[in-house]
């Protein structure tokens, strides 16, 4: 088996840049949410002990959110300039806790899917941590490029798309409202609710299909589509609620950033794909 060609320095720099920007944006988005309205972490800390909460005072729980917000902002800056794996792991951990707390708090349709839905933002920092410290050799003997981050990224993207796909198949009222609003605001067409439901069902099926495909096919076109769709759905929050909902878009940066990183990586390392990368990745 021949050694796969390593991606070029320019390509990896671009992948790292995309992931840095992605993680930075999601940190800023979550920080804004902490300050504006609070996250499920607040509800967990403040919640009644009889129901599994920690029973903290409102002030103490808000202070935790405030501190977390500042840490996220500082993390965003560091991630852009000089990311390091301990910080990235902490960022990933915090996003995991937010997702887990959302499951505990409940109060939304399928809130038990919160962690899977947020898999991309949980794993984006981890992927960056894996890829960033490594440097591409400029010697004539190209080194084997680690592909573990690719595996994590594919799984995270697949899980996020599957979770959203399932919600779509369950005809999430929120998603239906987004479709109706987009139709009205962007196209000027007053779509009926039944049509929106049919569209959503199709979207759900497509999401599930691509979620499965990304695990088995290392295609830059597939990843590119997922990046495109992740961007559209993240932006739909702003279409629906205006720029006041910018944090909803920012916190979902990994929904398009992670598949975009995959698309760039795969599109510039075809030889890698044709040889052993698929087997190694899986």
């Amino acid at each position, binding site marked *: 088996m021949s050694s796969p060609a390593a991606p070029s320095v320019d390509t990896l720099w671009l992948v790292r840049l995309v992931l840095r920007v992605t993680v930075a944006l999601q940190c800023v988005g979550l920080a804004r949410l902490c300050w*504006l*309205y*609070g996250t499920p972490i607040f509800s967990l800390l*403040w*919640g*009644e*002990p*009889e*129901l*599994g*909460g*920690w*029973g903290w005072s*409102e002030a103490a729980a808000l202070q935790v959110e405030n501190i977390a917000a500042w840490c996220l902002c500082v993390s965003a800056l560091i991630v852009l300039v000089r990311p390091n794996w301990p910080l990235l792991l902490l960022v990933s*951990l915090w996003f*995991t*806790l937010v997702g*887990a*707390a959302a*499951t*505990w708090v*409940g*109060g*939304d*349709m399928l809130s*038990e899917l919160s962690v899977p839905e947020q898999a991309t933002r949980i794993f984006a920092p981890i992927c960056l941590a894996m890829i960033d410290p490594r440097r591409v050799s400029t010697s004539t003997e190209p080194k084997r490029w680690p592909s573990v981050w690719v595996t994590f990224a594919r799984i995270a993207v697949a899980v996020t798309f599957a979770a959203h796909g399932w919600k779509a198949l369950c005809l999430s*009222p*929120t998603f*239906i*409202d987004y479709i*109706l*609003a987009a139709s009205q605001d962007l196209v000027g067409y007053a779509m*009926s*609710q039944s049509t*929106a439901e049919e569209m959503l069902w199709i979207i759900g099926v497509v999401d599930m299909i691509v979620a499965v495909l990304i695990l088995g096919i290392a295609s830059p076109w597939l990843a590119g589509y997922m990046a495109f769709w992740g961007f559209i759905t993240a932006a739909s929050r702003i279409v*629906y*609620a205006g720029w006041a909902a910018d944090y909803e878009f920012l916190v979902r940066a990994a929904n398009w950033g992670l598949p975009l990183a995959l698309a760039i990586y795969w599109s510039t390392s075809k030889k890698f794909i044709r040889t052993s990368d698929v087997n190694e990745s899986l």
Partner: protein
Amino acid sequence: MKFFTRVLFALLGIAALAPAVTPFAQTKAEGTTPVHWRLLWKTDPAHEATVSWNTAVEGETSLVRYRSADGEHTGEVVAQRNGKFTGRGDALHYHHARLTDLRPDTRYDLTLETDGETKSGLWFRTAPAEDKEIELLFGGDSRSSQRDRQLMNRSMAGLLHERPKLLGLAHGGDYVATGRSLEQWTEWMSDHELTTTEDGQLLPVIPARGNHDVGELFGEVFDYEDDRIYFATTIADEIRLITLNSETVTGGDQAAWLEEELQESRPEHRWLLAQYHRPLYPAVKVAGRALRDWVPLFEKYRLDLACEADGHCIKRTVPILFGKPDPEGVVYIGEGGLGVGQRTPKSHLWYLDEGGFASRGNHVQLLHFSGDSLHYESLGPDGKVLDEHTFEARSEEEIEEALAEPAMAP
């Protein structure tokens, strides 16, 4: 999933979660003895009511016997809907008997019966069908603190006993924290018995759905058979209360229905109110999804009062029209204090500033309709008045002018 969450936190080295304490239900169902009674109103409280109760064993026949105070109107209705509550835990069965053709403004004594086991001594009063001075309670969020919920329930029973004009309670949702927990619903239904006065008067409830009321149990408790849960209720001829569902699609069919409803109701009723769960001008949280779909309609048809929940505080906005204060605008009150920890509101928000009100504390909101005035009070558990305001009915000219304007997005 809760178990997974706890394991996750433990593995990550976070201090162990406080152990969840199983809530203690006051009234435990046994055999076919009726317990957890509740009286539900939907669209026509002058002529219709649903009497609901639970039993441990389903039984063969569940029925309600009713008798008007003067003895001239009596009847027996076999429960049209019976079943076993969804969920794990001790088996519990529900029975819903839908009474129709009742006389307005009439006391009815009730006897609930399942397979020979009875519960008597309960009664309720139908709403008047004519324009009359009446009172209505509004509240929401009874989901988290059992102690506070019981306190508020007793408080409401006291109000029902002391105030003969008080008809019922519009509940803005979030009865329990986990909508799929039969245990929590059982506890809520048991605590709801505390709203019954000492002489057996039931407090009718007009239930809206909250974001925590997910799953099938909500419909089984309150006799809703689908997820639609939006409708309009006429009370005392001149009051139209529109119950909306902020937990389903807020645009689409519901918005279309709302516009049609407002168009028909505004000219025909002196008072037009709405109740729903997620606030559109919130004092604590982010605005609900319905902001873009409902507010233009509220403003176009000059809704008098919007009753909201979810925020866990007390609030009354200034009158709002087209995104700014306007004397002809819509006032939003709320936001849930029937048994939930209270949040500190953002009093600096423009719509809570001068002319508005924001505070925190368990409360229920009393709406007193008298002719062309609506007097609103926010009452604490001890009956202390925390906030009050008086609204005057809109004139016909004002309404005609408003209907001539196009709806505008907030």
